[in-house]
Each structure stands twice: as structure tokens, then as C-alpha cells.
């Protein structure tokens, strides 16, 4: 008997049907992967099973009995959902988050020590060294994901639903997560997860369900589908090469930007590099190596000093945030929800937040803005039926596409993409890569910070590696391989790098 059986499940938001009759079952000890384009309905399906939204029609059965609605009922039966967007309290400690709503008591008092001990244990199991007492706001995004997982596992689930758990993790962290899933499964637990990284789907899933526009178009053992077949099923048309051809590069072009000995307290301890027009430069490094902070410091988003900073050949002070933007230096944040988009506002307000107006004057020109929005929606294939609805109602991947569109306004010369394809489906990833290559071909400079090695190697002309807040090496051409990058990132190769 299946652990979870879903039959004829339908779900609509207002007038649009998001799930159109889903039949699905999950067995005990099984790992099922849900794949599909952005907006296909993966998260919605998980939320219905997890009791976060009621189904429109159809039945849900768990361990043979019907499943009453509501999160509490679902959790009581052993179904726990880890959301795509984090659901944590930033001002509480890791331990407090893990035990939130389930605080362990000793008499009338909260058993803080016990909770912290258990949290440490759970996090260690996940290979995460974050201290249980640390305030969440002080931890990295990858640690947040691990705290979310520890929190979910602490509820002792029989069925664990994970919505894009690896989106914010780098390769070694993913490995530890997979090991944990393996252990969980070995103890009889079942897992349903979504991911846009099809290689990991193939590796850890037993079965794969491909979702397209709210319908399951194929369920098959993971071994029976190649990555390419999955991608084709997802988008409904054959996909060409994922990475576009690298635009030709003028290696003798004068640098657009040069920085020496960039420092930012606590994170960046000496980064030096030069960026030229028309090139795509990758930035690699382990989580915590200061990649994000380095570029935030460079673009005025955090306090910083530099030994020397040159822009278009002219020496000057590091710019402030607004100044950087006026100088044509743009940054796409990795923290979409916290720093990227106003979730309560519509697409237009988000896309045109900075330059708004368009008329050049202080007034907003509605018609011009609508035209720009429709253009962006078309270019980035953003799926949003209701343009006025808050961005919160978009699927995660579509939010990411909107963020890319927003960052590229009005036409920066240097764009730093921090994890640009996080949570973006494979078809749209291809779209984002095309955009980046297109920018470079126009003579703009693109920096790509990514935890996905394949992305860096497939997309970039050269890759700069950071380690512990310093730039420690650079690879290009023949030497641009995963092993080589990892050697620098882990500190196995301490080449003199200027």
C-alpha cells in the first residue's frame, strides 16, 4: 500500500487552474522527484499535500486513510513540508527556530540547553557547523536551508516534502544533504522533492514525475529517463544546447574596472582583479569565501576600503550604492526575498523601482511603463497572468526572472549576477544565459557568481576563485575545469595571484 495516494487533485487560484487533475502515489522508503518548468505547479502541489492550502477537488489519502485539511493535521500524521522560500524567524537563534512551536520544556521552563544540544547534533548530521545559538540573521543562506531541514526532521516526519532544497547549496553541501536523505530513507522515511538540477534528480530519486502546466505528463523510474528527456518533457519541445556560444573577447580591451586589495570588515580580506568590457567572468569559491560580500563591497552595498580603485582608467574612491548605479554598475542579489523584490508590490513597481518615471522627469508615465513591462515579460518569459497582483503570487522561478529583468534596467555596463539561475527551470536558465552572453556581445561586462561549477565553466571566459575573503587564483581556457577550480577553492594550490 502506498504511503501517500493523490487522486484527481485540482486546484485553482481565482480563475486560473494551476493543478489539473493530478494522480500520484508515494511508497514507503521512496524518493520521488517532481520536476517541471517555473509555474508548472510543483510548489502548489506540495502545499496542498502539506495542508497549507486546501485542494479544489480530488482526494488525498495517507497510510490508507483520508487526510484531514490543515498544517497541524498533516504534521500530526507525519507530513512535513520544507518551503521553497524560507520560513524562519531571523531574530531567533538556530535552536529556537528548530524548536519553534515545539519548545522542549523542563517543568515550567524552556529547556534551552537540551534544545541547543539536539540542534547541534541535527546540524552536525547535516554537515553544518553553524552554532545553535547564533541568530539566524547572522548566518549564511545555506545555513538557513540546513536549519530548515533540521527543523523539519525534528518533527519526526514519515513523509518529507522538500521544495527546491538544493537551490541555495553548493556542491559539497548538497552531498551532505543527499547523505541525510539516504539515511532518512533507510529508516523507512519517504521523500518528495523538487529541483531544477536534473543531474541530482537522476542521482537521488527513485522515480521522477514530470509536471507541465498543472498536469503530470510522465512518471517513470529515474533510471529510465535521461536528463535531456526530462528537460524535453518539461518544456514540451526539444531543447538545444544549454549554454550559448561564448562571445568573442577582446583580451586587449582596456579594463572597465580595476580594484586592488579590496577589503570589507569580517568578510573580504584582500581581493584584486580587473574586469574588461565584453567578457564574462565567473567567481567561484566555497560558501563563506566572501564572493557575495566582495561584490557588495565593490558596489557600495557594504562598508569597504580598497588599495586602489579605477573605473574606465580613472582612479577614484569606491562608489556608494546610488553612485554605483548611476555609474552603470549593477548587482543582482542572491537574496531575492530579502533584498531583491518587494513581494507586496506588483510587477511594474518592482521592475521600475529605481528609475521609475522613464520620462526623465519626476512623474511616472503609466503607458510607457506598461510597454516596458510587457517587453520584459516577453523577453524573460515571465509567467504572470495578473500584472497588478503582488509579486508574492508568482512562482519562485518567475520572481527570479523578474529580478533579472529589474537589474538590467536601464542598461548597466557592468552587471554582477549573484546566483542568477537559482530556482530557474532549465528552459529559462537557457534564456538567462543567452541574456548574459548577449550583454557581453554588446561589449558589456558580466560577472557571474555561482555555486554551480558547470554553469561557470559553460558560460564564462575565465573564472576567478576566492578563498577566505581573498582572490586566490584564476583559471581560463584549457585549465578551466572543475578539479582546477576546486583545488584553488580548497586551498590546495596557493599560486601567487595578482
Amino acid at each position, binding site marked *: 500500500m502506498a504511503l501517500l495516494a493523490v487522486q484527481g487533485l485540482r486546484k485553482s487560484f481565482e480563475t486560473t487552474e494551476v493543478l489539473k487533475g493530478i494522480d500520484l502515489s508515494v511508497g514507503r522508503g521512496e524518493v520521488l522527484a517532481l520536476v517541471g518548468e517555473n509555474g508548472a505547479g510543483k510548489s502548489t502541489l506540495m502545499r496542498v499535500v502539506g495542508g497549507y492550502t486546501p485542494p479544489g477537488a480530488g482526494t488525498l489519502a495517507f497510510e490508507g486513510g483520508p487526510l484531514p485539511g490543515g498544517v497541524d493535521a498533516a504534521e500530526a500524521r507525519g507530513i512535513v513540508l520544507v518551503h521553497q522560500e524560507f520560513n524562519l524567524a531571523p531574530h531567533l537563534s538556530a535552536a529556537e527556530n528548530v524548536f519553534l512551536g515545539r519548545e522542549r520544556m523542563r517543568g515550567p521552563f524552556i529547556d534551552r540547553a537540551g534544545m541547543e544540544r539536539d540542534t547541534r547534533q541535527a546540524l552536525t548530521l547535516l554537515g553544518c557547523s553553524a552554532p545553535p545559538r547564533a541568530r539566524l540573521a547572522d548566518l549564511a543562506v545555506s545555513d538557513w536551508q540546513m536549519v530548515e531541514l533540521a527543523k523539519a526532521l525534528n518533527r519526526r516526519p514519515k513523509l518529507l516534502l522538500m521544495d527546491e532544497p538544493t537551490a541555495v547549496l553548493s556542491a559539497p553541501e548538497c552531498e551532505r544533504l543527499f547523505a541525510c536523505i539516504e539515511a532518512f530513507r533507510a529508516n523507512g522515511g519517504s521523500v518528495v522533492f523538487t529541483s531544477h538540477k536534473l543531474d541530482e534528480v537522476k542521482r537521488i530519486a527513485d522515480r521522477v514525475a514530470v509536471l507541465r502546466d498543472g498536469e503530470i505528463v510522465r512518471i517513470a523510474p529515474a533510471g529510465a529517463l535521461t536528463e535531456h528527456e526530462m528537460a524535453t518533457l518539461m518544456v514540451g519541445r526539444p531543447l538545444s544546447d544549454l549554454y550559448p556560444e561564448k562571445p568573442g573577447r577582446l583580451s586587449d580591451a582596456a579594463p572597465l574596472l580595476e580594484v586592488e586589495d579590496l577589503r570589507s570588515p569580517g568578510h573580504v580580506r584582500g581581493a584584486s582583479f580587473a574586469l574588461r568590457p565584453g567578457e564574462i567572468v565567473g567567481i567561484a569559491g566555497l560558501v563563506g569565501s566572501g564572493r557575495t560580500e566582495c561584490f557588495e563591497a565593490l558596489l557600495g552595498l557594504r562598508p569597504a576600503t580598497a588599495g586602489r580603485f579605477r573605473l574606465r582608467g580613472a582612479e577614484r574612491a569606491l562608489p556608494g550604492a546610488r553612485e554605483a548605479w548611476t555609474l552603470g554598475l549593477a548587482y543582482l542579489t542572491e537574496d531575492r526575498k530579502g533584498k531583491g523584490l518587494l513581494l507586496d508590490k506588483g510587477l511594474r513597481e518592482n521592475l521600475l*523601482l529605481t528609475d*521609475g518615471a522613464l520620462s526623465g522627469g519626476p512623474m511616472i508615465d503609466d503607458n510607457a511603463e506598461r510597454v516596458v513591462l510587457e517587453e520584459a515579460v516577453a523577453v524573460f518569459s515571465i509567467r504572470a497572468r495578473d500584472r497588478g497582483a503582488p509579486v508574492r503570487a508568482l512562482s519562485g522561478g518567475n520572481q527570479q526572472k523578474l529580478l533579472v529583468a529589474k537589474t538590467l534596467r536601464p542598461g548597466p555596463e557592468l552587471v554582477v549576477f549573484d546566483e542568477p539561475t537559482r530556482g530557474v527551470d532549465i528552459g529559462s536558465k537557457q534564456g538567462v544565459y543567452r541574456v548574459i552572453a548577449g550583454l557581453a556581445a554588446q561589449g558589456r561586462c558580466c560577472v557571474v557568481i555561482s555555486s554551480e561549477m558547470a554553469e561557470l565553466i559553460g558560460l564564462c571566459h575565465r573564472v576567478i576563485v576566492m578563498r577566505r575573503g581573498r582572490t586566490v587564483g584564476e583559471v581560463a581556457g584549457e585549465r578551466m575545469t572543475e578539479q582546477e577550480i576546486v583545488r584553488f577553492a580548497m586551498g590546495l594550490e596557493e599560486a601567487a595571484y595578482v
Partner: protein
Amino acid sequence: MSDTALVVRERAGLRGALGAAGPLVALLALVLLGAAVNPAFLGPDNISNVLTRSAIVGIIAVGTTFVITAGGLDLSVGSMSALIAGLMILAMNTLLPFLGAGWTTVLLGMGAALLLGLLCGGLNGLLVVKGGVDAFIATLGTMGVFRSVLTWVANGGSISLDFGLRSVARPIYYGGVFGVSFPLLALLAVSVLGEVALRRMRFGRHVAAIGSNREVARYSAVRVDRVRVLTYVIQGVCVALATLIYVPRLGAATPATGLMWELEAIAAVVIGGTALNGGFGRVWGSVVGVLILGLIQNILNLSNLVSPYLNGAFQGAIIIIAVVLQQRRKPR
């Protein structure tokens, strides 16, 4: 897919419309109630009286809308008004021997008031934004400072405007054109300007963005500090404008001038549908909110059902109810 995508809807829906019209419905209900309670209520004298009185707090509430929409708070508006009134009168009285009891003196007094409003608002803004003091504490502090300075200048008593000047300045409050009083005209002008700035200008979009998520605004190259300080400056100028219109009626500034105006202004803004935590604001709503508060007071005065002394209790209760309703409407 693309066919449905072509249907561009800009957030209409019955629920949205009702939510937007809420304050208007309440206003209408109050008008009907007033008419039922006392036939004199709908008389032109009474209506114009209520409107003119509401105009003063209304002008202040327009500024408050900006501060709250940007996620700030200003508790000092009542005290600021008292201080501005006192110093403005003092300035005019001082100029009197040199310039005589004429419009020059009055206009210079008005200019001084506006300048002072700018400075007081700027002080609040700098304390909150550059000083990093929580808005509640910073403006609670200046609230004490402003009123106390006025009390000190007035030596505990009152600062009275010279009688000659009083009759010169009288039309500023009591006069009007085509039967519309100047205070009402001023409110109209300020609220139209405010509504345009908040809804139709880039500045307004930045104000709402900062209130919605300050980090997002900062990462979007919005001049966060400057915009936040500006909202407090706007508030200060609005207070000054309201005060300089009110002074001819008052004739004197006392330590009780503008008492509890912060409560009225904040209540009006929240009733009007501006999110108390920032991120969304509408100026016309605040104006409707002020009218609602004014009508309640007026109805209490005209009827003998409830003592008018309980007016403050009504205002306090309404602000709480408005906030509760706001939180209901939010998801989560």
C-alpha cells in the same frame, strides 16, 4: 498561455474595491447618522465649521501619511505645532514696532513658521535616519523638547498675538473665496499635491518601497536616507502650514496648543487605509479619516447621547479598531 497572459488586469476585483471604499462608506454613514441626530447638522454653517476645523489636522495628516508610508512615525507634531505657533507669534510681535501692523509683518511671521517647520522636521529626520534612533523614541523625545521649549518661552503662560496684527491676519482662517474657507482651500491644495507626489511620482514610489522593505530599496539604488529624511521634512512643513493658518484663530500659543494632535493625525492616516507598518499609503484616505474624526466630534457635540468629553476615547478606540481591521485584511 500567451492568450490569457494578454489579458492585462490591474488589480480590480470586488474585494479590492470594497477595501478601498471602506473609509468613504464610513464617512457616508456618519453623515446620515448626523442628519438623523440633529437637523442642524446638515446646515451650511455647521458643515463649513466642521470642514474648516478639520482642515488644520487634515494638513498635518497629509505629512503623516508620508512618514508612515515610509515606515516611520512622528509623535511630535502636536508639540511642534505649539512651538511653531509660539515662536511665530513672538516673531511677529517683535517685528511690529519696526514694520507696523500690516501684511509685511504677517507674511514674515508665516515665513518664519515655515522655516521652523522645516528645521523641526529636519531634526526629527536626522535623529531617526542619521542618528539611528528608533522613530518612536526620537520623536517621543522631540515631542517633550518642543512643548517644553514653548512653555519656557511663554514662561508657563501664553504668548498672545498683538491685537492689531490679529485683525490683519484674521481672514487667513475666517476668510475664503466663493464660500470656501481658506483653510479648506489649503487642505485641498496640500492633499492634491500629496496624492500626486505619493502616487504619481518616483518619489512616492520610493517612499512606499522603503516602507515595504528598506533593504530592497537600498539594493535598488534608491537614496534611502535622503527620502526618509525628506518625509520628516514634509511632515514639518505641513505642521507649519497648518499652524500658520490656525494662529489667527487661536490668537495665542499656550502649552496646551496642539495637544493630542499626533493621536488625531495618526488615527486619521490609519483609518484612511495607510498601512501602519509602512509600504502602502494614500493621502485622500487620510483626509477622509480626518473628516471622519471631525464628524464624530461634531455629532457628539450636537447630540446629547454621549458626552463630548469622551471624544478622545472615541478617537483612541477608532485607531485601535482600524489597526485590527488592517491586520485582518493581511494574509498570514
